[in-house]
């Protein structure tokens, strides 16, 4: 799997992401600067990592979404190429129009930095094939604006088309207000694009991949992607 990690000023999770991609897929990703206009030839997966691009000025992800490299990312997605956005990356993908909706300020107004439980809603996508549908995974979040909001028509479409990939849940997979850490509509933690080739999620699966550090539940996402491209190739 040939991956490219997009780097904007103010992004700070790109090295965690690159380390995980190398660790799980065995291939070193390319780091692509925001002012570049092309992705490295043969890129399978584009990753927009977490951080605070442009200091979260204006709106989270708003300025990064208009960076020159994003035209290349949009073109990659329109060819059916896979794009993964994590945390600020999810916000950037929403602002760039690759995913619908907006990430608003957390309902309780606090920055949340802790492990959460996610229910994997489906296993038949390149991003989630490393998990079983209904499986609960433990991964960290670190965000102040992760409260997913969209108009009711969009939410109905996302739910009806099975485009919710992950939801905040309890350790047993039950949905309850107390587990919905940021107040997201329908406890949505991650969504897929209409064609299923773009995934955005607030939590950081790339930070739970090594047993020396803690849980390894995030590994399935990257292992699944690696398998997907091994099969394609």
């Amino acid at each position, binding site marked *: 799997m040939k991956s490219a990690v997009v780097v904007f000023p103010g992004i700070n999770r790109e090295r965690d992401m690159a380390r995980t991609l190398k660790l799980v897929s065995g291939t070193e990703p390319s780091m692509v600067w925001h002012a570049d206009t092309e992705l490295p030839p043969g890129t399978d997966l584009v990753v927009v990592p977490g951080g605070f691009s442009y200091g979260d000025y204006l709106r989270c992800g*708003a300025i990064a979404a208009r960076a020159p490299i994003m035209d290349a990312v949009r073109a990659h997605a329109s060819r059916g190429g896979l794009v993964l956005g994590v945390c600020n990356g999810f916000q950037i993908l929403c602002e760039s129009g690759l995913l619908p909706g907006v990430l608003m300020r957390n309902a309780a107004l606090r920055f949340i930095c802790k492990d959460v439980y996610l229910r994997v809603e489906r296993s038949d996508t390149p991003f989630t094939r490393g998990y079983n549908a209904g499986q609960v995974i433990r991964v960290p979040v670190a965000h102040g604006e992760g409260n997913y909001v969209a108009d009711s028509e969009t939410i109905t479409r996302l739910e009806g088309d099975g485009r919710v990939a992950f939801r905040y849940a309890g350790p047993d997979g039950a949905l309850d207000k107390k587990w919905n850490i940021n107040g997201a509509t329908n406890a949505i933690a991650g969504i897929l694009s209409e064609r299923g080739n773009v995934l955005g999620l607030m939590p950081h699966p790339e930070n739970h991949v090594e047993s020396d550090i803690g849980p390894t539940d995030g590994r399935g996402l990257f292992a699944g992607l690696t398998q997907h491209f091994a099969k394609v190739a």
Partner: protein
Amino acid sequence: MKARVTVTLKTGILDPQGKAIEGALKSLGIAGVSSVRQGKVFDIEVDGADRAHVEAALKDAADKLLANTVIENYRVEVLG
């Protein structure tokens, strides 16, 4: 020309920051505050003397960057 773009949250979009400010105003005892919605103001200087042209350029700016029209409305005022 001087112009102002005002960006506000659409009706129905929850505004936790506005709610927090509303709570603080109430605790200060400011009389009669029943609701606060927070927005943004951009004061912009644009080259050119044609009002319609400046207004069109700023509408373009608001659509493309200053506002996220999924959740926000905007208003452009050319101040002259």
